[in-house]
């Protein structure tokens, strides 16, 4: 009874109540509480799976022993792994460059359309991006199909083909990159269009008065004003493209001769199809350092320019 009295006295004391009150009044506390749902969400959906993947990657094949970094050591000795690294880099870099170029050009076209009809064009051009990629890739698979390829049918009257779109390494790599560009270019287009709309018209007017050519206006006005958007879009797209799974899985399943595998599809082949979950996890984790380095460089550049402004 005495204890309870003492404890309740201390809880109810004006000092502790005011310190709690002060704590709750602090901006940092409020910010923390407001961010708490997001922190919980990230812990459950990102941190835990990522930590679990790291844990799995450090187990032996039969998942009975902790082997630290032996799976990674092993991967470094495999030719197929290095081919997957090469293909992932080729796929992501080529696709992002083409998506950025096409997005930039199309964004200019759309920007120059009178605002009355622009909405329709924007909607139509976004279609490849809003269709679930697994579904649209199925349509591409039919276009490339060995027996019924519509592309080969179109080429036939001109004496061209048949092209083994998915059967020969060069063509298969071209095909998976093409589909990725088709799916992803509208995202660049819409981001660049938003950036173009935010460039003050006065800058172009001043450039025109100074006698700037079309190219000089692009180079000295448009591009510097869009630089941050271009960097962020490229970073975001690089991450998503590196982590691509569905396009390769539906189109080639990594064939021919594993030459179209990306980290994701190769991890699936090893982890799920070959029942080597630790090795599959180790492969999938290789994306992290590559993307982390890219993210650090790009974000550092953006921050630097932000502080210059």
């Amino acid at each position, binding site marked *: 009874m005495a204890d309870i009295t003492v404890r309740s006295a201390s809880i109810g004391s004006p000092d502790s109540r005011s310190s709690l009150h002060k704590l709750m009044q602090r901006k940092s506390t409020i910010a923390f509480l407001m961010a708490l749902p997001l922190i919980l969400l990230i812990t459950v959906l990102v941190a835990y799976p990522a930590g679990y993947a790291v844990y799995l990657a450090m187990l032996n094949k039969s998942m009975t022993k902790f082997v630290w970094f032996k799976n990674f050591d092993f991967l470094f000795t495999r030719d197929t792994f290095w081919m997957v690294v090469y293909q992932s880099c080729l796929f992501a870099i080529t696709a992002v460059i083409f998506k950025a170029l096409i997005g930039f050009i199309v964004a200019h076209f759309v920007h120059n359309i009178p605002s009355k009809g622009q909405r329709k064009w924007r909607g139509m051009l976004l279609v490849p991006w809003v269709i679930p990629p697994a579904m649209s890739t199925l349509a591409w698979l039919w276009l490339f199909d060995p027996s019924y390829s519509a592309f080969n049918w179109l080429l036939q009257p001109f004496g061209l083909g048949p092209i*083994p779109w998915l059967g020969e390494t060069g063509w298969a790599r071209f095909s998976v990159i093409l589909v990725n560009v088709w799916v992803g270019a509208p995202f660049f287009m819409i981001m660049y269009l938003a950036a173009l709309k935010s460039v003050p018209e006065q800058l172009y007017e001043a450039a025109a008065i100074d006698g700037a050519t079309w190219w000089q206006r692009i180079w000295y006005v448009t591009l510097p004003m869009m630089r941050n958007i271009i960097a962020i879009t490229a970073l975001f797209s690089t991450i998503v493209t590196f982590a691509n799974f569905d396009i390769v899985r539906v189109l080639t399943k990594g064939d021919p001769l594993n030459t179209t595998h990306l980290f994701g599809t190769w991890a699936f082949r090893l982890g799920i*199809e070959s029942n080597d979950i630790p090795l599959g996890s180790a492969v999938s984790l290789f994306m992290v350092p590559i993307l982390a380095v890219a993210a650090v460089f790009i974000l550092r550049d953006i921050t630097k320019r932000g502080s210059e402004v």
Partner: protein
Amino acid sequence: MASRKVTRRFVAKTAAASTALIAAPFVSGVHAAGKLTLGLWDHWVPDANKASQALIDEWAAKEKVEVTVDYITSQGNKLLLTIAAESQARSGHDILALSTWLPAAYQEQLVPMNDIVDPLIKQNGAVNGTVEYLGKVGGQWLGVPATIGSQLKGPVSRIDLMKKHAGIDIQELYPAGAPPKADSWTLDAFLKAAEACHKGGVPFGIGLGTTSDSVDSVGAFFLSFGAELVNAKGEITVKTDKVKQAMEYMKKLVAFLPPDAASWDDASNNKWLVSGKGALIMNPPSAWAVAKRDAPQIAEQCWHHGFPAGPAGRFGPFLPFYWTTWKFSKNASAAKSLLTHLSSPSAVEKMVVASGGYDIPAFANLTTLKVWAEESPPKGGLYHYPNPHNHQILSIAAAPAPHKIAQQIYTQGVQTQMVVRYATGQPLEKVLDWASSEIEGFMRT
């Protein structure tokens, strides 16, 4: 402290309630024997699921068990992912369909089934060597050989095109209702036929990708030469004369296959047959069933038959499913009872009929059911599909290697990749070095 008066009525009520509580689990109700969940392979043949559902319902009503059946498609690896997830979570279906390599892969987590498989073998006849190799590890059956989904991926030829271009009467070699007269159906004859059909503009449709159909076909060719990449002891045997012979043969054959065979998946050969572009594919009767629906004039020219014989014998690629029970299942005894029911000859026949002859029971006495002789058109076209005269050795690619190595050779398509590498100009020694190096990697424990 307030006291409560204990009345006679109170004592009577308490006694009645206690009795009811204690006796409750033994009261014979509608689902008194508990619950059972099944994850079965979702059949390609539209109405085939209905037959298994009816058999399960019949058993459930008799045994008073509440049964839930999930038909899980193998499209998009859904079944494979479900199995992996249940294994990791240690929770899931009481009975789950596992194909080919998976019982061995999950052997530590599966309930041994010797107590029901051994009596079933006595009742229904012996199982073939591949069913035993894949399903019985260390003397223990890891699952009950399942009827649903078990298939043989032997050749299915176009009667008309084979006659016209290769001069082969496939019905004469494999007559309906009679043992095969196929001594002349050898690898050499097969190669000549492939060349003739290629010249005639209807090439054989054999894939060289890394999916199951391609791997099964190429694996059977390898076995026909006695070419093993890893032997039963787990020793790498890539650089042997038999493997080299198989590679030389395959290089010749690839020249007569479609140019993009390296990218074929499991649907490509079906489309090849149904489109009328090819004279032969390696597939169970699903391609024929689609043709029956979409291109009946092609279906009536399809004849299922045995593999060509090589120096080491005649090998037909067989892919069995198993019905398994996890060790964490809460109702393993009910699961075993249901699996015994599903493996009775009458149940098996119902499932095979519902699948239009697609499913092949593992047990010898059940491979001569009427359905294969009667399915049409053409009548008798499926007669030789289940290997009724044990004309060929039922096999699986990468056998007889230890399971954990063989599974990786199979799923990563090492044999098909070897063939494509050699056929596209890589020197044989370099290809064999590559294969050895890959397989060395599979040896890690």
